[in-house]
């Protein structure tokens, strides 16, 4: 008996209207992520990584193809499955400041997903808030502040906390550590790894930093012009026959 992957994307096509007609950003793209897998996604600026991330998180519409969560098509989930999908799949957005509601305090922002995704009581919610702030290295004192009062890296950590607080099964990280200093980056990557080991959390880790992808991920997908051009085990990267992957590697030393 075969087990359905956590996430399966089949022949996905996403296009945007533009001043010169519709442009296809994602072109008949397919991939799957199994339960507990840690997968990296790399590629040039503008190749469509964020667009893909938003589509699988149901935040952008797609023109063709299908996305399945635990074997069920997103387009036909029943309310209970939809709830499970929304809790199970979390996205950390690329631009941290834009992703937070400026009128909400940090505590409200981080706890908001708990309100509609879980039935925890206030005490349990607050306990999770305290724990998650500590995990991302933010002082508890930040809880009452607003996004515009935070530095770029502090906002990014609020986003990470917001995604982690619901304990997702698959976390999509879109450049989730790129605006942090190196030490903080290492700390967050260690945290993600620990969540993977201890709770079997899967990751789709989008990054321009190949070194961190090689460190964190078992598998790496290389994207170019809206398509996945290579899907390779990270411990075999050096053997790649692909010219484009070679170039990415040589640039990142």
């Amino acid at each position, binding site marked *: 008996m075969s087990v359905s992957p956590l996430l399966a994307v089949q022949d996905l096509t996403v296009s945007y209207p533009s001043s010169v007609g519709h442009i296809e950003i994602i072109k008949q793209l397919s991939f799957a992520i199994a339960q507990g897998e840690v997968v990296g996604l790399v590629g040039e600026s*503008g190749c469509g990584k964020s667009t893909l991330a938003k589509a699988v998180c149901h935040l952008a519409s797609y023109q063709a193809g299908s996305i399945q969560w635990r074997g069920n098509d997103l387009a036909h989930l029943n309310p209970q499955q939809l709830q499970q999908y929304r809790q199970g799949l979390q996205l950390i957005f690329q631009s941290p400041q834009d992703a937070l509601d400026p009128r909400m305090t940090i505590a409200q922002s981080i706890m908001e997903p708990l309100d509609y995704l879980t039935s925890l009581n206030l005490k349990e919610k607050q306990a999770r808030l305290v724990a998650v702030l500590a995990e991302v290295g933010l002082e508890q004192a930040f809880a009452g502040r607003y996004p515009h009062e935070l530095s770029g890296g502090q906002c990014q950590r609020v986003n990470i906390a917001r995604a982690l607080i619901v304990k997702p099964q698959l976390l999509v990280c879109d450049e989730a550590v790129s605006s942090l200093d190196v030490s903080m980056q290492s700390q967050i990557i260690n945290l993600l790894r620990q969540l993977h080991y201890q709770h079997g959390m899967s990751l789709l880790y989008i990054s321009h930093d190949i070194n961190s992808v090689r460190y964190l991920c078992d598998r790496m997908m290389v994207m170019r012009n809206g398509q996945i051009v290579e899907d390779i085990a990270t411990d075999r990267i050096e053997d790649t026959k692909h010219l484009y992957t070679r170039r990415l590697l040589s640039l990142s030393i």
Partner: protein
Amino acid sequence: MTAPLLSIDDLQIRYSLDDQTIHALRGVTLDIYAGQSTAVVGESGSGKSQLFQAVMGLLSSSAEVSGSIHFANQSLLEGESPVKSLRGKEMSLIMQNAMTALNPYLKIGVQLIEVLQYHQGMSYQESHQSAINMLEKVQLKQAAQCLQRYPHELSGGMQQRVLIAMALLCHPKLLIADEPTTALDVSTQQEIVNLLAQIHQYEKNALVFITHDLSLVSKLCQRIVVMYAGRVIEVGDVSTLMTKAQHPYTQALLQAAFIQKQDRDKPLVHIKGVPMNPMEEDQGCAFAPRCHQVMAQCNQEIPMMDDSGVACFIAKGER
């Protein structure tokens, strides 16, 4: 000796919340000379963006600022500040967040032309041509078409180039780039850094490059300023500082920077402990609780920056 282009003296920035005070900057003294390129590095939240937003007069009105900032001998914090007429013309800032720095509802062309008409009093025709020239200078393909596009129709790398072009329109004497390469792919990152280096060469402007990516610093800058918890804790020229850092924080930062090629079975090295709470008053060195070499004096007195280029009792004791 010539006077510095930008001179900052004991700059402090505080924000009052109900019953607490946030110390965003705790006293920064820094000179920047014409033609010099300076990297500013430091922990997330250490005050890098706040420092240069203060220079540009862009702090929120709730900020309580003390100390002084002089630009070309004009005081920016006292009396009628000339900062509004200098901003965008004599000094420009490329903001940390490309998406929010561009207005999503206006075409790129409109945003560029506005700056030129306002500061240079150019006609529409002149400014249109000038804008195209500048986009070509930052090596944006199809510059003329680009003027007709909205920000969201451009990729991250293209938006970043537009922002650089916008900052350069009036050939400022001081160009501040706040994390201009964050979240760009490695090749685009290198292109942007090379571009900034070229611009720095022919414009002969003073360049401030705020970054957390130490690997990019030596390609672009002569000097590094290291910040921690709202203070400058070490200053030096790039080659010396990269090899002979004196402050334990700088040493730890450099170590964390070069861990990437490591064994997958071991956790990544990072600086243990938490950054100083910005709501706390500092009594000693802010790094003391995380420092391996901490001495009694470190917890009692605040180490001050002097000509040695480092604010640390341990580093001073060793000399």
